[in-house]
C-alpha cells in the first residue's frame, strides 16, 4: 500500500526527516509516536503533498507508484486521506456542499457519475449516525464555530464518506474529551477492513487504547528508531522517550 524509502524531507530548507523507512500493507494499522518536533506532522504533510515541503532524497510509493510528483488532489483522489490536526475553517461554505464537492470529485475520478443532492443526502445521513453528529452540522459552514470535538468528528465523517484506502490520522486525539475520543475511535474501528490501511500519528498512548495498532514506530529526530507491536506504546507511556535516544 505505502512504501516510504529512505525519505529525506523538510521545510524552508531545513531537513526534518532524515532517512525514514516505513512500509504499510493493506489492512494494517500503524502508529507513529514521538515528541513534538520529531517530524511526525512533517511526515503526514509530505505524504499528502503539501506545498512548501520538499523531498530531497528517497521516495514514496503508493500502490506501487511514486507519488512525489503528484499534486495534493491527485494523491487524495488516488485514495490518501488525512484527518487534520487542525481542521481548517471555511466561512460561508456549508458542510454539505463541501463534502458533496469532494465526494463527487472522487466519484468522477473513478469514472462514476456524481451524486445528486438527494442521493448525497441519503448517504450522508447514514454516515452522520456513525459519528453521532446532528444533521444540523450539515448546514453549518465547514468547521466554522465547531468545538474541538466537533471538528475531529467532522474529519472522521469526511473519511467515512470519501472511503480512502490509506487514512492518516494526524493527532486526532488532541483536543478530544473522552466521549468524543470513543466516538472517533469507534468510527475508525468500524472502518477497518482488510483493504484499508491507517497511519495514526500521536503523542500519547491514549488513543491507542481504543484503536489498537498492529505496529508502533518511534520517531526521533526524523528517523524511526524503534518498531514493535502495540505493547511498545505502553512501554513508551511508562518510560518516556529518553531511553531510546542514542
Amino acid at each position, binding site marked *: 500500500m505505502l512504501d516510504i524509502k529512505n525519505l529525506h524531507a523538510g521545510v524552508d530548507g531545513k531537513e526534518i526527516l532524515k532517512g525514514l523507512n516505513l512500509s504499510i500493507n493493506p489492512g494494517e494499522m500503524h502508529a507513529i509516536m514521538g515528541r513534538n518536533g520529531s517530524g511526525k506532522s512533517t511526515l503526514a504533510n509530505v505524504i499528502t503533498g503539501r506545498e512548501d515541503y520538499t523531498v530531497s532524497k528517497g521516495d514514496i510509493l503508493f500502490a506501487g507508484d511514486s507519488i512525489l510528483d503528484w499534486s*495534493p*488532489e491527485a494523491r487524495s483522489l488516488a485514495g490518501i486521506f488525512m484527518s487534520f490536526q487542525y*481542521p*481548517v475553517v*471555511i*466561512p460561508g*461554505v456549508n458542510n454539505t456542499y*463541501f463534502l458533496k464537492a*469532494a465526494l463527487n*470529485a472522487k466519484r468522477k475520478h473513478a469514472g462514476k457519475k456524481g451524486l445528486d443532492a438527494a442521493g448525497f443526502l441519503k448517504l450522508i445521513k447514514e454516515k452522520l449516525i456513525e459519528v453521532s453528529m446532528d444533521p444540523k452540522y450539515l448546514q453549518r459552514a465547514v468547521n466554522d464555530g465547531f468545538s474541538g470535538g466537533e471538528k475531529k468528528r467532522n474529519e472522521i465523517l469526511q473519511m467515512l464518506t470519501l472511503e480512502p484506502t490509506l487514512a492518516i490520522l494526524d493527532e486526532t486525539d488532541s483536543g478530544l474529551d473522552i466521549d468524543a475520543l470513543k466516538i472517533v475511535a469507534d468510527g475508525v474501528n468500524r472502518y477497518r477492513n482488510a483493504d484499508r490501511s491507517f497511519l495514526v500519528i500521536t503523542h500519547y498512548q491514549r488513543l491507542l487504547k481504543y484503536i489498537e495498532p498492529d505496529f508502533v514506530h518511534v520517531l526521533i529526530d526524523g528517523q524511526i528508531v524503534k518498531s514493535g507491536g502495540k505493547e511498545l506504546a505502553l512501554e513508551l507511556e511508562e518510560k518516556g522517550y529518553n531511553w531510546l535516544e542514542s
Partner: protein
Amino acid sequence: MSNEQQVIDESLKKDYAYGFVTDIESETLPPGLNDDVIRTISAIKEEPEWLLEWRLKAYRHWLKMEEPKWAKVVYPEIDYQAISYFSAPKKKELASLDEVDPELLATYTKLGIPLEEQKMLSGVAVDAVFDSVSVATTFKEELKKAGVIFGSFSEAVKNYPELIKKYLGSVVPYTDNYYAALNSAVFTDGSFVYIPKGVKCPMELSTYFRINEANTGQFERTLIIAEEGSHVSYLEGCTAPQRDENQLHAAVVELVAHKDATIKYSTVQNWYPGHPETGAGGIYNFVTKRGICLEENSHISWTQVETGSAVTWKYPSCILKGDNSVGEFYSVAVTNNHQQADTGTKMIHLGKNTKSTIISKGISAGQGQQTYRGEVKIMKGAENARNFSQCDSILIGEKCGAHTFPYIDVRNPTAQMEHEATTSNIGEDQLFYCNQRGISSEDAVSMIVNGFCKDVFKELPMEFAVEATKLMEVSLEGSIG
C-alpha cells in the same frame, strides 16, 4: 487541472488581451467639448430648449469644478478635450456565429449564456427562430397593459417631457460632483422607467433589458420613478464580458420612490478590465447612483456585482427622507490583476425610524486594489434611525490590497449603529484542505469566494445569481498558482 481546461483558460486569458472589438461604423463628432458640441448633441436629439439650457448650465458648472482626487485609485490624467462626446454607433452585423471570435464564444458558453443570446451580444443578425424584436414587443405590450413606462431616455424626453422636467437632476443635481456635472452636460441616452400608483411591475425589467441592451452609451442617464405603492425590480448590465471603445464611462442613475413604493436596482458589471499584465486599455467607470426615499415607508435597495472595469469609482446611495423608509446596499466587488475599485455607499437618514443596511464583500486578487468607502449620516431629525454595516474583504495572494474607510456622522442620540468589518486571506491552509479532499484549487477558490458572497448573491434575481456565481469563477481564473 485537465489539459482541456488549460487550453480553455489560456484562450480566455487571450480573449481579454486581444479579443473582441466591435466593428463600428459611426457618426461621430470631432473630439472636444464646448458650447457648440452640447448644442449639437441637443439638436441631434431634438430636445426642448429647457433641456439644452440645463445641459449648458451643467457644462458651465463643470468648467469650474476639479476632478476629484480623494479616491484611492491611480490612473493617467484624462484629457477631456480628447474625447468625442457624440457618436451614434451602428453595429456591423455579422452573418453567423462562425464570424465571431471563438474565444469570446468560449467565454459566453462558460457563463452559460444561451446560444441565441450569444448572437445578440456579439452582434450577429438574429434569425426568425428567436426574434428579439418580437419578444421585446411582447414584453412592451405587457408593460403597457400595466401602465408601466419603460424606454430610452431620449424617447421619454419627447413623450413625457413633464416627468423628465420634474425629476431630472432632482436626486443627483448637476452640481453634485465632477462626473455628474459632465454627464448632465453631455449625456446621450439611457433608460427611463415610470411605475404608476399601486402598480407592481409585472416582470423583472432585467429580462427585457438584457435583450435590448445593444449599446450602453458612454454617458448614460437613467431615471426610475416609482409612484405611491408601486414596486419595480430593475437589472442593469450583463455577465457577458463587454468591450467598449470608450474608455471613460460616467453614468448617472436617479431613483425616486414615493410613499410605500419599492425600487430594487441590481447591477452586474463586467466591462473590460484592461490588459491582465499591464492594465492597459481598461474602462474607467465613474458613476453616480443615488436614490431618494421621498415619502414614508418607501424602500430602495441597491445590489451590485462589480467584476469588470480597470478603475471603478462608484457609491450607490440612498437618501432616506420619508419616515420609516428603508435603504439597502449589497455589494460584491472583485479586483483582479491590475484592477482598482473605490466603491461603497452613502446612507443619509433624514426621516424618523429610517433603517439602512450595508453588506459589502470585496475580493482582491493579483495586484488588485480595493477600497470600501461608506458614509452613514444620521441627521438631527432622524429619530430612532438604525444602520447595520458589514464590510468584509478577502485577499487572494500577496500583491493585492483591501482598504476600508467607514465614515459615520451621527447627529441624533437615538440612533443605533452597528458596524462589523473583517479581512481574511484565502489561505494556503484552506486551499490545501480542499486539495486534500480531492477538490482542485480552481474549484476551491470559487467555492470559498461564492461562500463569501452568499449574503449578496441571494439578493439578486434568481437567474442572475446563478450567472454571478459563474462570473466569479471566470473573473478569478488563474488567480491561484
